């Protein structure tokens, strides 16, 4: 069984991103970049399925600029067998990314596609579901447990009220939530080995799809700031402030 894992290069989760001075976009000059955390979980799940003998090959794919090769190398160091970069000059919107991924998946015909539920840059939470629609695959989003039984996947999903379990026919799309697994770190020997693994790079233009932006970014502003608060000295003072000043408890 072949598994495709789409991943994304994003700003490292520890970086506090700010708008540019002219508020035309976010300021990404000289910020640290990394693989999106949910994508690490997706790679880990695929690699575990391979280690368990369920999967035979894990292919990491990204749609992004040339710099994304760095994150694909990380995926290879974490255990992916080969990588595909669909190269673009600019960051595409989720629908365009899903269209590009759909082309790769049609060519690779994997039995399973695992990807992060959301990227921590745009916080869109769209690509997996869109990809499922474009390929007419079943979808199991926000997964916290996955088991493969023949031609179906049984997936436990994190939903607002608790947990839901569904079955999806393969091939299917699974998107990862935080509790699916704890990703490993790449070992030095594996980082060295990853340098020799195959990486196929092709320009997005070769796929023959429309990737034009549908949304216009009008402006990017900082969020409203909260008025500075105070420190109270005791629980008694806290309760008194909440009752008499803030009037939020009685």
């Amino acid at each position, binding site marked *: 069984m072949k598994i495709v894992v789409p991943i994304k290069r994003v700003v490292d989760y520890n970086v506090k991103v700010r708008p540019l001075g002219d508020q035309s976009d976010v300021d990404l000059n000289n910020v640290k970049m990394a693989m999106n955390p949910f994508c690490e979980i997706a790679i880990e799940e695929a690699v575990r399925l391979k280690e368990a003998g369920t999967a035979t090959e894990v292919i990491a794919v990204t749609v992004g600029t040339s710099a994304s090769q760095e994150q694909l190398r990380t995926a290879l160091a974490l255990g992916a067998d080969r990588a595909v970069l669909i190269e673009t000059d600019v960051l595409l919107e989720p629908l365009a990314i899903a269209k590009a991924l759909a082309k790769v998946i049609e060519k690779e015909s994997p039995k399973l596609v695992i990807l992060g539920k959301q990227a921590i840059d745009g916080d*869109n939470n769209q690509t997996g*579901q*869109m990809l499922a629609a474009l390929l007419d695959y079943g979808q199991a989003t*926000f997964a916290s447990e996955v088991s493969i039984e023949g031609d179906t996947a049984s997936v436990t999903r994190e939903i607002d009220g*608790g947990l839901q379990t569904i079955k*999806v026919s393969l091939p299917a799309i699974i998107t990862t939530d935080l509790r699916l697994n704890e990703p490993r770190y790449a070992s030095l020997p594996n980082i060295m080995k990853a340098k020799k693994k195959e990486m196929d790079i092709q320009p997005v233009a070769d796929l023959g799809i429309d990737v034009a932006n549908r949304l216009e970014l009008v402006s990017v502003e900082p969020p409203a700031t909260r008025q500075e*608060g*105070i420190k109270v000295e005791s629980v008694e003072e*806290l309760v008194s402030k909440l009752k008499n000043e803030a009037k939020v*408890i009685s």
Partner: protein
Amino acid sequence: MSILVLAEHDNSNLKPSTLNTLAAAKEIGGSIHLLVTGKGCQSVADACATVEGVEKVLLADDDAYEHQLAESLSNLVKSIASNYTHILAPATTFGKNVLPRISALIDVQQISEITDVVSADTFKRPIYAGSCIATVKSNDSIKVITVRATAFDPVSATGGSAAIEALASADVSSLSSFVGEEIAKSDRPELTAASIVVSGGRGMQSGDNFHLLETIADKLGAAVGASRAAVDAGFVPNDYQVGQTGKIVAPDLYIAVGISGAIQHLAGMKDSKVIVAINKDPDAPIFQVADYGLVADLFDALPELSDQL
């Protein structure tokens, strides 16, 4: 303009997030239709018909829609999408699961988790865990939008008198099937709808210690939440998680206990009206957003707080 809103419900009760989503629809303006899909959910449709500002309720009552599985539900919405200029759903796990699928089926770039309606085609939404607010204008002919419930005051559940129209099932899919669910049962209010939330973090040290928070929550009629660290450590179940990738809350009072205040957690609660932080580390970032900060050991402060309430 004509707006379709997907109602969120459990086949017997309408979820409050629907009313917040309708408030965003009202700001966009135009006639509003509310779509109820489910099985044996006539009572939900009846409740929808009385909601303020709803012109028509569309009811698709069929086995295929009992669990709101994305595949069949998306095909149904696709079949009626061309009647609308906007399709909205709450940005809950229900809306987040189904709406992008609909969006791709009708070749639209969705706008996720809007917090403000600027005009019928322009919206504000937080990005990078709320570190920035983007204003985006959609050039698609149909706007597909999820709505952050906490950013819009709910419309009234009464005062309307919409007609209920039956909608036949369309293109039912067998790609996925429901197996089961474990829905947490609690007498406390729902986290996203509670007016007071008491949350614990890694500082709670164990799941057992959450009873300290529960005692206080019960005295205040509050919901109990948690940071990702507390959920990852197994102290409490996943549905407690407040933050960028968990639940977004904005109660009148948010009490953060033993939570350091990572940006990912702040993204889920910093729009609360009053924030209280109790933490023994005076430099914890949570104090930067707190209206009232108490530097104390939570194991001393919580019993004392409980006594004084």
